[in-house]
């Protein structure tokens, strides 16, 4: 009987002897399922890791905190003030206008109030105040860029020059080189309204600033000629009738532009000026480009207007 058993053992006489591990019969579906199982396991592992990490970090944080000295335990005097600007202002100017006495307890400084205080200075557009322990106070400001000058008379009749920034804010400029100021056209035809120490921001300056930038870009010789910009006919809505920006220059006495489509008008203006120069005509007294497709040009020494189309 033992020999018989050997015979039967010699071959796979029961199905259980068939190798079960076989990956050849894999199908896409089974593979997908394996991935899903794997991915699920991965997600569980990842979740576990995140959880453990969070707990660990919390413990570490608490431990670290406990080792730190409380900031309110002792005084810390301001030893250094660092002023930083993207414009012309400097530390001296700041020290003059917003004196923070060196030696003040840094923990007693109200940096938010300080920020408001600094921003109230006309030339400053935006400020940030921060404290760096142990004793440094950082003040960073971004300044307005002047586009126009405006002249006002003071209460005592004295003449003051104020500057107008792109956003319309009117301020007293400080530390600008005189060359910069001289290049700025003057602004007329606006009403300045007092607001506390300063004035309310003006409307429409952005448009004028665009015009000036474009003109400096496209027709620098014309832009250089501009002395005054008169906003008395300017309305904030473009479609308003008679809406215009009037520019007074040294050579061209009066240029009237519509406050839209500056590029087009500047190019036409350039054309008219060149044309006039080629014909060796004398200076242009008046150009009105605010009508859709015609330019009204009046030359000096002549009284009749000439129409260019």
């Amino acid at each position, binding site marked *: 009987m033992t020999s018989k058993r050997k015979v039967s053992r010699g071959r796979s006489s029961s199905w259980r002897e068939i190798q079960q591990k076989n990956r050849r019969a894999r*199908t896409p579906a089974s593979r997908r399922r394996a991935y899903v199982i794997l991915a699920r396991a991965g997600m569980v592992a990842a979740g576990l890791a995140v959880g453990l990490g969070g707990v660990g970090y919390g413990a570490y944080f608490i431990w670290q905190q406990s080792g730190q000295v409380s900031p309110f335990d002792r005084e810390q005097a301001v030893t250094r003030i660092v002023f930083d600007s993207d414009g012309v202002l400097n530390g001296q100017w700041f020290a003059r206008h917003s004196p923070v006495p060196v030696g003040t307890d840094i923990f007693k400084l109200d940096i938010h109030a300080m920020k408001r205080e600094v921003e109230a200075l006309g030339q400053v557009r935006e400020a940030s105040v921060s404290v760096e322990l142990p004793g440094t106070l950082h003040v960073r400001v971004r300044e307005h860029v002047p586009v126009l000058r405006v002249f006002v008379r003071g209460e005592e009749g004295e003449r003051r020059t104020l500057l107008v920034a792109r956003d319309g804010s009117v301020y007293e400029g400080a530390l600008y080189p005189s060359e910069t100021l001289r290049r700025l056209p003057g602004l007329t035809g606006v009403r300045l309204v007092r607001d506390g120490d300063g004035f309310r921001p003006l409307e429409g300056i952005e448009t004028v600033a665009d015009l000036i930038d474009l003109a400096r870009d496209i027709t620098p010789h014309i832009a250089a000629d501009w002395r005054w910009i008169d906003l008395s006919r300017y309305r904030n809505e473009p479609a308003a009738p008679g809406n215009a920006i009037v520019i007074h220059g040294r050579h061209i006495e009066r240029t009237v532009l519509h406050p839209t489509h500056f590029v087009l008008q500047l190019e036409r203006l350039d054309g008219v000026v060149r044309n006039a120069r080629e014909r060796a005509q004398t200076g242009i007294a008046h150009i009105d480009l605010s009508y859709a497709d015609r330019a009204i040009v009046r030359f000096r020494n002549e009284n009749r207007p000439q129409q260019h189309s």
Partner: protein
Amino acid sequence: MPRNKIIGAVEIGSSKISVLVGEIEGGRELNIIGSAEATSVGVKKGEIVDLSAVSRCTHATLIAAEKKAGVQVDEIFLSASGQHLEGFTNIGTVNVQDADNWVSEHDLRCAGQSARQKALPQGRCYLVHIRGAAYADGREVENPVGMQAAKLELKYWNVHANERRITDMIHIISGYDDGLSVEEIIPASVASGRIAASDEERRAGALVVDIGEGTTDFVLYRKGHIVRTGVIPVGGGHLTNDLSIGLRINFKQAERLKLRDGKAVIERGDKDSHVLLEGDLQIGDRPIPRLAIAKILNARVAEIFSIMKNRLGSAISPQAVPGGVILTGGTSSLPGIDEVGRDVLGVDTRVGTHPAWVTRKDLRDPGYATTLGLLFFGLQGQSLGERERKAEAPRAGLLRRLFK
């Protein structure tokens, strides 16, 4: 307590692949928590003809069933069918070792071992060894242990199969998940017999016939033991094919016609009665005489039963199977099929119903007998606790108890 075991019962049939997922709670209770079924592609007459297509179908069905159950299956119970399954009876005989002839467990094991040991030809492998009656000195006894006898005989019904085909099936499962093991491969007849016949019927002696799509599987019980199993590679698919050839319609039309108007007996009114092929008043629809349908189906069904009768010989008679013939499987829904069975086999024949514990309505279809049977075996196996699986230990320990 070990965690609840999730077992999957997989039947790769010719018409459909069905998967039931059962949860075995505390080793005693079985909950069916998931089921799925898919039209089978690549299986004909119970045998896999296109492995990759069957793999795809089976995997998709398994995934669907797992999704419904919400858990992954731990073990797989497979059913096997097809012409390649064969069986034979073998009797293991031992001389009782004890000097006073007291029969011990050891004697029983030895007898079982010798009954299961017959060498198979190359390319065949055993699926199951099913213990039958025991004889102590030639007397049939229920349990010989503790009795006094000089000679102990144990009868076994051994089912063996084509190794390649079984390997294919195992590979389908291992291709699904190579960590998943096939726990048992049970002949379809054995599985569905367990469901279709009650304990009393099996004790009395009964023949369970599972007529599926590709095969007809039968199992003969006597005194509660399985004494024969068999596969006839003819099933519902043949009925459809016969209709398709005989009525000159395509296979799909034939299948619909079979399900809708098929019947296995020829009745008087059939001659003049017609049914519409499609019944939807479409162009191309045409009337088909009921007589033609009944004749074709009757011929086939009668043939299935007569082949079975030939195979079983004298084992099938009203005396031998007082429990009668119980039909199950998808094709058993064909009207009149029991009548034909009765005529041909000469034994009371009826269509079986599932035991009351199968409460889900959709699972009460006779087509689920096999998978339900597989789950049932899964449960039985669990209740045995630690399985004796090692090569030395008698493998049939599980089945021995199962088939008692």
